[in-house]
């Protein structure tokens, strides 16, 4: 089997400060990789380097693309990378405002990715948008309303629908439950888990919330000061942490 994503020697510095350093990992199709750490640990830098939002200083990010097989996304041209971002990739932002067009209806938000890859049949686009809004539990009666009239949890679900509508091979998620109330978080997590299992999504998810990765992630990477300090199966890392920092992280959760 070809790995979906192979990351080798990825490093990004901000002047003297290390963003992330020497990160290697492999993601297999259908796998969910969690990246955890405190704020400033480099997990968001890593995610943004993987998703092409930041240019790393060194390293390779090889994606098994639908059209051309394994390609290093860092050496791709900008048009190729933007095309990937509309087809093979998806990115779920912590703040739905960063991932949605607040002035465009929910249906339009979901339909945009379809139109960006050439869909030109209004009826089909609308039907697919309605289907995806239903899957994320949004009443289709609201599909012509703007996300600005939705609650935070609904906005986040529209963002997820917008990302998944073109059937991406790889989904990046940056603290997808971060800005939500606890009860809303639980519902969203439940929905995400259902989608991930049902669709066999491959996901790289960044969070500081260990309960999120316990529920969603197959494997885990723990980051501290830009370095990966521990890696393994989620249950293994959380139940039997080897690195001192991971032990601290896990215990602080238990004590909450």
């Amino acid at each position, binding site marked *: 089997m070809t790995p979906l994503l192979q990351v080798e020697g990825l490093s990004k510095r*901000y*002047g*003297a*400060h290390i963003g992330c350093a020497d990160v290697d990992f492999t993601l297999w199709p259908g796998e969910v990789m969690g990246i955890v750490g405190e704020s400033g640990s480099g997990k968001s830098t890593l995610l943004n380097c993987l998703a092409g939002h930041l240019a790393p200083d060194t390293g390779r990010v090889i994606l098994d693309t639908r059209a051309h097989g394994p390609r290093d996304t860092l050496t791709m041209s900008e048009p190729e990378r933007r095309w990937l971002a509309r087809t093979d990739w998806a990115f779920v932002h912590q703040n739905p405002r960063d991932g949605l067009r607040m002035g465009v209806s929910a249906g339009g938000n979901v339909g945009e990715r379809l139109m960006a890859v050439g869909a030109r049949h209004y009826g089909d686009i609308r039907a697919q948008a309605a289907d995806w809004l239903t899957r994320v539990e949004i009443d289709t009666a609201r599909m012509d309303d703007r996300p600005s009239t939705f609650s935070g949890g609904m906005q986040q679900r529209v963002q997820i629908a917008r990302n998944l509508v073109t059937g991406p091979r790889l989904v990046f998620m940056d603290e997808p439950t971060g800005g939500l109330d606890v009860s809303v978080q639980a519902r969203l997590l439940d929905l995400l888990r259902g989608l991930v299992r049902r669709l066999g999504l491959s996901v790289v998810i960044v969070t500081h919330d260990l309960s999120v990765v316990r529920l969603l992630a197959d494997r885990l990477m723990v980051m501290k000061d830009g370095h990966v300090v521990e890696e393994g199966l989620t249950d293994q890392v959380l139940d039997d942490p080897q690195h001192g920092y991971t032990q601290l992280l896990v215990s602080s959760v238990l004590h909450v």
Partner: protein
Amino acid sequence: MYVAVKGGARAIANAHAWLDEARRGDRDVPELGTDQIREQLSLAVDRVMAEGSLYDPELAALALKQARGDTIEAVFLIRAFRTTLPRFGGSLPVATADMQIKRRISATYKDAPGGQVLGPTFDYTHRLLDFGLAEGRDVPPAPMAETGLESAPHILSHLGGEGLMQAEPDGAGAVPDLTRDPLEFPAERALRLQALARGDEGFLLSLAYSTQRGYGRNHAFVGELRIGAVRVSAHLPELGFDIEFAEIVLTECESVNQFQGSKTAPAQFTRGYGLVFGQSERKAISMALVDRALRAQELGEDMSGAPAQDAEFVLSHCDNIQSSGFLEHIKLPHYVDFQAELELVRKLRRAAGADALPEAAE
């Protein structure tokens, strides 16, 4: 049969004749000479030169007269004239440090070599209407200093020696010119400064004020403000030497702004810069503040989304000839577009069943 509105040509000719008459006003009042405008409304002349970006007090006075005192219209006349002038070359940078100073103040040092010189300023006048002026009172000559001014190097150069003031790189390459090349983004600082120097005083004033009120705040001091004459010279390659060909009055402002420093650079003061034709210190100070605000990204400061930090926003909207032209073009006929909209709105209303509603006039 109905005949659509005709006779545009005659209407235009008549309108222009009326404009001529209105400009002259009551013929029992003596006509204003351009020399009077140049001498007695000199700050208006300066503003027309600055925003028209052509240094010629005679023409600026004529433009003000022709424009009936409308500054932006006068600037427009100057711009339209300027565009037809052949270009022989560029001048050498003017040495503002060698300025023959009329006014020079600093808010950051009580005294410095060259001293503080108030000059002909409205500052500290009480804004009381001087009814004597209406009656043409005598204006006695102002007292003269006994000796000329000593040399007055830039005040901020004293900070540079300690490394406290960020040094400005020498502009070695060709200076960009937005009157010869289309404005493209991202715009480098030299280009931004050119756009600001031509920009509308009111617009820059409001933007600068907005930075003081917290929209892209960066606390500024007037490090130095100086007004006076400088010599303009050019290098003539055919002759192999420089010749001096003009003396112009400029207003220059250097603001001092704190810079917090970053991971790679220690804290330092930075500069905002304003340079304007003629005596126009409100514009020069505004320009310096806006210039500094536009440097936020380069200095790694928080981009708060404030208008004054947004080069595309500022440069695309600071030119009053562009903005007033486009604003006023909506006076032009739009029958065709309006007709198309009319049909569309009717159609949408029909679709929505609004036909059922009674229509008043029919």
